[in-house]
């Protein structure tokens, strides 16, 4: 069947901001879908509020709406664009739920929009837990015993039916949100209440537990002719009970006989047919009882998912691209397998290596959060590694995680201290799924537990445990006998995936010595290709991974890298997503690849994050799927250098990850493109940076560096409290705090950091009530282009990544803006920046202070590009490769529209943690609101970020003294537009004094009914609460917590509140209009 000609335009809904459970895998899928459909000549209309995505680059769709993804807004896009079809399967749960709402409210019918890929019945059959169960029964597939409830009243009966422990699974939620495992009645009732609240259809499935069973996923594709293929099978190393997104997983499945595998394959296909997914990719999850082989179906996702991104990268089969083409009528046999170029897409990839995925967590940023892994997803990113054996891929993944591991590094076990091993205690520890359980498993084996003991504790399949035991055994002989003496011995340990760094630890040498010995014996990795067919058909695509072929083949191992003789640029990616380093940096790397290919270079991408666009085989000319460590990167660059010329490596685009490698690369005489690592160090090194500022006569807050607690106190006294304090060299403001007094300082030095000679703490005088400004610029050594000046909404003190900001600035005086531009330019020249630079300023009165300079790509680069229409990452990369800014046409004035960036937070996933913002970054993603004026742009950013601003009702206000004056005006406006006010005593007095009446309400500690009672009874529609000081923060925690868990919109800064009030006013002035980027940015590109 050829492609459909009865449709001309197609609407694609993106996934919106990066949140836990929906990360950049949906940029990968959306980007592939846009490209694929545009290639087919369709008019592609895109809605996605996330400016950091590649898919929202104006070139990828014909009309790109960076607008909130809500049914109302998308309906307006539909009304304006009149698409013939809507493809809802590329934007995760967000797109699916929005599409569902749009069919229910009749919008799709009204404008004659056809759902392609998955229709309403299919979506509901798959996502509605009850309908899904019935569907499974209809095709004789087994599911766990369960009861669906819509009302808490039925919970008890349901529990009697399934018994404890019980699994609670809400319908239509994302990443298992609102679900959990209840081991007792209390937990049960609490989780069920939460689940009912979070499920869009307020229904939860109460289910019999199959904890400890093996969990599998199948990635299935179906076309209109009912051809079905399995792209990849995935086995979870963590058994049932840990969300697949939080589980360590391997591909392909490794512990199934063919009979079991074919049963699962048949079941997967039967599920797609029964659910009615006519075309596209789906993911089906199974559980298998290891003792009896009993197979049950867990769920299916009728869309591309995190797992399909993983499956695509693991096999080379571009699921999203193919799914998009199937949605417009092609059949699999009509589409090519790009990798081989000569065979069709209608086949099942087969692989000759093992893929391991390990999730990355960020619990340290959310004190109070429950760090146990459950059925609700908590990880913020993942790393994937490829090796010829499980051991090799596992150890590559561990070092790729970038959490300081070089392999299965030792960890502390409570049950095994100073030689004493209490088996019971260790077993107890292993029973609890945690983010580092695999390391604990290894440690348990190290301290002498048997594989069977460990198995009984954690139910990780024996096959995996035995492989880990083999690694531990190898470690023991390395410790005993030191490094191998002959190539064969070396190849054997390297073949197990040991990094030089890990070998160095084990044999206590330093890494350089280990690498030297290894290379001295000619032991080097070879590169194999990912070709979808286990070498049966020659591959056209240089998509590669490294491996050490085992010791005694008797032949020189075969290297398939086959480097070209071109002029090459190597781009180092950002590795796994984490808070502080996410999709924004991948965006920059992808732009570097695009721009440099256009400029005629061969682009070589190195990254290990399967969710990204950068790891698509067609983003760069050559792709190495490798951990971003010095060892792995240097080895592959040497191979590339063996032919042609490597012009240099770009380390400034992938965030902190590649930057950390700069020194090692230079040592290996590998040229770095653009700003020199020394300049980067100059910006990061306190002393050197200070000298520079003095030379340039620029100001920074009073500051000092302390290597001991006493020294720190001395410096703080001299600077004067409050001070901002942090360890040196951190990203995302890790462990950064504002301390108000000596006690606070001592506590910080005691609890937050370990200071020493070579890792000191940095202490800055905290600038109160200063306006923070971000500036992004591109410099070429001669000229400096100021690409964007962003005024933060929240005052300095809230991490730049967490505060909302406006481009162009809303309230800054023109001369202040000129001044920061001038200073930014001076810094660019002073640091001799070649490429991108980001500066953060704080403006107090008319004084301008420099907070920090990052002579590298920053988090705001994509936002600036989307807001101004200038592709600065592309320009910067070409400048780094030698071109001059003068060669580009650059605008010289700000746009006349306003773009507002707002951050999105994962607090809802970590109920125990506080929602107040500070200098440590906590947001996972961002949205952009763009409109003619600030108020509406800000309103859009709030809506897009999921904050539903009320247009009437009661506002609760309770602010710290320093904010009281500012609050007055806010309160007055609120009252004037008809809100009633509720305030705590102090705040109420302040308002009274200004002649504003408010209803007084008790603080939580003042007896009942207090504010939380009022919130719980639904009397509060908006919360404005600012606090400072440990005590006050602790006392007011419960009210913020209630706002969070009961989705009551809240603002924890007075500036945020002010902007919100302006937005509320604007919203009352008429509903939000939608306009495509292409209209705002007319002329540019």
């Amino acid at each position, binding site marked *: 069947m050829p492609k459909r000609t009865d449709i001309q335009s197609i609407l694609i809904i993106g996934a919106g901001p990066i949140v836990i459970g929906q990360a950049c895998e949906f940029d990968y899928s959306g980007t592939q879908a846009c490209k694929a459909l545009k290639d087919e000549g369709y008019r592609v209309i895109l809605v996605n509020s996330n400016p950091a995505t590649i898919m929202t680059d104006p070139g990828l769709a014909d009309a790109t709406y960076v607008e909130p993804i809500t049914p109302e807004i998308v309906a307006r896009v539909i009304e304006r664009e009149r698409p013939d079809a809507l493809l809802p399967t590329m934007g995760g749960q967000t797109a699916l739920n929005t599409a569902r709402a749009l069919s229910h409210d009749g919008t799709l019918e009204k404008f004659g929009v056809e759902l392609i890929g998955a229709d309403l019945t299919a979506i509901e059959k798959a996502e509605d837990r009850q309908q899904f169960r019935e569907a499974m029964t209809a095709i004789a597939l087994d599911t766990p015993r369960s009861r669906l409830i819509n009302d808490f009243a039925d919970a008890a009966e349901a529990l009697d039916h399934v018994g404890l422990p019980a699994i609670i699974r809400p319908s239509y939620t994302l990443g298992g949100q609102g679900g959990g495992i209840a081991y007792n009645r209390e937990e049960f009732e609490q989780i069920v209440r939460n689940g009912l609240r979070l499920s869009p259809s307020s229904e939860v499935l109460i289910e019999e537990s199959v904890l400890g069973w093996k969990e599998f996923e199948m990635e299935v594709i179906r076309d209109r002719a009912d051809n079905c293929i399995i792209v990849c099978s995935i086995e979870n190393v963590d058994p049932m009970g840990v969300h697949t997104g939080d589980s360590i997983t391997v591909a392909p499945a490794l512990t199934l*006989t063919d009979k079991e595998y074919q049963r699962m394959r048949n079941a997967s296909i039967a599920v797609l047919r029964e659910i009615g997914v006519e075309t596209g990719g789906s993911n089906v999850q199974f559980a298998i009882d290891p003792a009896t082989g009993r197979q049950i179906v867990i769920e299916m996702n009728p869309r591309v998912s995190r797992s399909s991104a993983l499956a695509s990268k693991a096999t080379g089969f571009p699921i999203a691209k193919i799914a998009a083409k199937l949605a417009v009528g092609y059949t699999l046999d009509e589409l090519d397998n790009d990798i081989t170029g000569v065979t069709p897409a209608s086949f099942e990839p*087969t692989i000759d290596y093992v893929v391991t995925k390990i999730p990355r967590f960020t619990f340290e940023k959310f004190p109070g959060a429950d760090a146990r892994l459950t059925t609700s997803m908590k990880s913020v990113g993942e790393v994937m590694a490829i090796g010829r054996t499980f051991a090799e891929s596992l150890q590559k993944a561990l070092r790729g995680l970038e959490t300081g591991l070089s392999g299965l590094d030792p960890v502390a076990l409570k049950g095994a201290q100073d030689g004493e091993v209490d088996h019971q205690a260790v077993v107890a520890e292993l029973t609890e799924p945690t983010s580092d359980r695999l390391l604990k498993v290894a440690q348990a084996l190290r301290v002498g537990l048997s594989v069977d003991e460990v198995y009984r504790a954690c139910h990780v399949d024996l096959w995996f445990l035995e492989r880990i035991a083999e690694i531990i055994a190898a470690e023991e002989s390395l410790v005993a006998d030191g490094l191998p003496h002959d190539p064969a011995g070396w190849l054997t340990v390297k073949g197990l995936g040991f990094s030089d760094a890990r070998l160095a630890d084990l044999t206590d040498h330093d890494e350089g010595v280990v690498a030297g010995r290894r290379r001295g014996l000619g032991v080097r990795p070879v590169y194999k290709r990912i070709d979808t067919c286990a070498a049966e058909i020659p591959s056209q695509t240089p998509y590669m991974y490294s491996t050490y072929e085992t010791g*005694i083949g008797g032949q020189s191992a075969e290297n398939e890298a086959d480097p070209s003789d071109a002029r090459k640029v190597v781009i180092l990616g950002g590795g796994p997503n984490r808070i502080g380093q996410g999709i924004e940096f991948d965006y920059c790397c992808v732009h570097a690849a695009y721009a440099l290919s256009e400029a005629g270079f061969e682009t070589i991408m190195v990254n290990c994050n399967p969710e990204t666009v950068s790891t698509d085989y067609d983003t760069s000319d050559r792709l190495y799927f490798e951990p971003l460590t010095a060892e792995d990167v240097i080895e592959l660059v040497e191979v590339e250098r063996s032919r042609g010329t490597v012009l240099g490596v770009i380390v400034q685009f992938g965030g902190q990850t590649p930057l950390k490698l700069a020194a090692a690369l230079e040592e290996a005489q590998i040229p770095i493109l653009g700003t020199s690592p020394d300049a980067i160090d100059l910006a990061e090194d306190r002393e050197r940076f200070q000298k520079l500022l003095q030379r340039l006569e620029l100001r920074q807050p009073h500051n000092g560096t302390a290597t001991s607690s006493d020294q720190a106190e001395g410096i703080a006294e001299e600077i004067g409290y409050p001070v901002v304090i942090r360890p040196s060299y951190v990203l995302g403001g890790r462990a950064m705090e504002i301390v108000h007094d000596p006690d606070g300082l001592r506590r910080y030095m005691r609890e937050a950091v370990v200071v020493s000679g070579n890792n000191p703490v940095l202490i800055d005088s905290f600038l109160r009530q200063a306006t923070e400004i971000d500036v992004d610029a591109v410099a070429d050594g001669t000229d400096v282009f100021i690409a964007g000046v962003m005024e933060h909404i929240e005052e300095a003190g809230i991490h730049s990544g967490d505060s909302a900001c406006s481009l162009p600035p809303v309230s800054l005086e023109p001369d202040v803006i000129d001044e920061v531009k001038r200073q930014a330019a001076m810094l660019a020249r002073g640091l001799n920046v070649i490429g991108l630079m980001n500066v953060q300023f704080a403006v107090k009165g008319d004084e301008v202070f420099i907070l920090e300079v990052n002579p590298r790509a920053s988090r705001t680069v994509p936002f600036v590009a989307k807001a101004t229409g200038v592709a600065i990452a592309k320009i910067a990369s070409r400048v780094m490769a030698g071109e001059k800014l003068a060669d580009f046409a650059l605008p010289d004035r700000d746009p006349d529209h306003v773009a507002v960036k707002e951050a999105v937070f994962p607090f809802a996933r970590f109920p125990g943690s506080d929602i107040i913002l500070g200098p440590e970054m906590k947001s996972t993603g961002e949205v952009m609101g763009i409109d003619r004026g600030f108020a509406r742009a800000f309103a859009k950013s709030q809506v897009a970020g999921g904050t539903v601003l009320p247009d009437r009702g009661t506002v609760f206000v309770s602010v710290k003294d320093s904010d009281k004056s500012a609050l007055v005006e806010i309160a007055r406006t609120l009252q004037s537009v008809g809100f009633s006010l509720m305030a705590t005593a102090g705040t109420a007095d302040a308002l009274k004094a200004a002649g504003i009446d408010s209803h007084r309400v008790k603080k939580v500690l003042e007896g009942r009914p207090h504010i939380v009672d009022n919130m719980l009874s639904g009397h509060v529609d908006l919360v404005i609460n600012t606090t400072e000081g440990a005590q006050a923060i602790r006392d007011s925690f419960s009210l913020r917590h209630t706002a969070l868990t009961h989705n009551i919109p809240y603002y924890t800064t007075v500036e945020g509140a002010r902007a919100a009030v302006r937005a509320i006013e604007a919203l009352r002035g008429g509903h939000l209009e939608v306009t495509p980027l292409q209209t705002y940015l007319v002329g540019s590109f």
Partner: protein
Amino acid sequence: MPDPAATAETDTEIPAGATAVLVLADGTAIFGRGFGAAVTRVGEVVFNTSMTGYQEILTDPSYAGQIITFTFPHVGNVGANADDHETTTPASLGCILRADITAASNYRAQRSLDDWLRSHDLPGQAGVDTRRLTRRIRDAGAPHGALCHAPDGKFDLAALRQLAADWPGLEGMDLAKTVSCTQTYHWDQTLWSFADDGQGDGYGALAAPAKHVVAIDYGAKRNILRNLAAQGCRVTVVPATATAQEVLDLAPDGIFLANGPGDPAATGVYAVPELRTLIDSGKPIFGICLGHQMLALALGAETEKMHMGHRGANHPVKDLETGKVEITSQNHGFVVKEASLPDTVTVTHRSLFDGTVEGIRVEGKPIFSVQYHPEASPGPMDSHYLFARFRELLG
């Protein structure tokens, strides 16, 4: 290919720890760690790209005369059991792996693959860059080789090379006879099913046979017979050498031509004349793999040796009549020459990998055959429908 670094002269020194070697006719010596039986086997070196079902593959009689390189690195994970056999005594000659065989981890496992290989007197070798070997086979064709497992690490490379060089090759080799049954027997076992308690898993038994099929055994895989039985057919299995008369005397409702090893032309010498008679008998006929090639020869077409053959469980085949694509299990090194097909024969199935003939039908006669393995085991079951199609022809 073969590259000099790889070409071992007879004085090649043996790497420490090597307990097995594969020596190819051109002298290439590939060393590894031996497992399975400590014996030497000589044959054609092929590869299989399946990621599951190694035991079914090793017991598929069509692998007679072949040493199998598994492209998936971890083989043996799920051990071996008494159920996943496609024949009593494996006809393949041994296997070559990337990673060492590990202890089994699966509730169905009864012993380790290593034991199992030893018990069937099959050698194996691990620690080989199997991807490199596979690429060599892909580019230069399936070589002849001698696989030797010697725990003491002592090999006579020259002698092994000689063995490989002297091995006549599959062309002209009639191997069907060597793997075919020697006496007629009856088959009533049906397909595998899982019982959720893990105890009652197993094959079924045919209760009330509706039809009678005579299967000519060129090296039949049991799952073919199980599929026939599952269609309600009582199956009588006769040796490859059975005459048309012997077959017809059994009064079958239909005749099945099984898969098998070796060169179709060689087996055809005695099989084809008999088949011609059977074709003329007007009885429904269904052939698979070698059976398909025998049928084609009997219809006047020719077969030829393929460069590297089709061996895997992911091969897309298009049913030209329905337009549907099936993912198939394949194992063949010879193929029917399309140009040589008489015009009474229609091509019904085609490989989407290389366009070769995968299925044919005789116009106006209840006769059809496929080159691939619709019985799967191992592999996808997409093509089981062909057995139902055959059943319909039986009336």
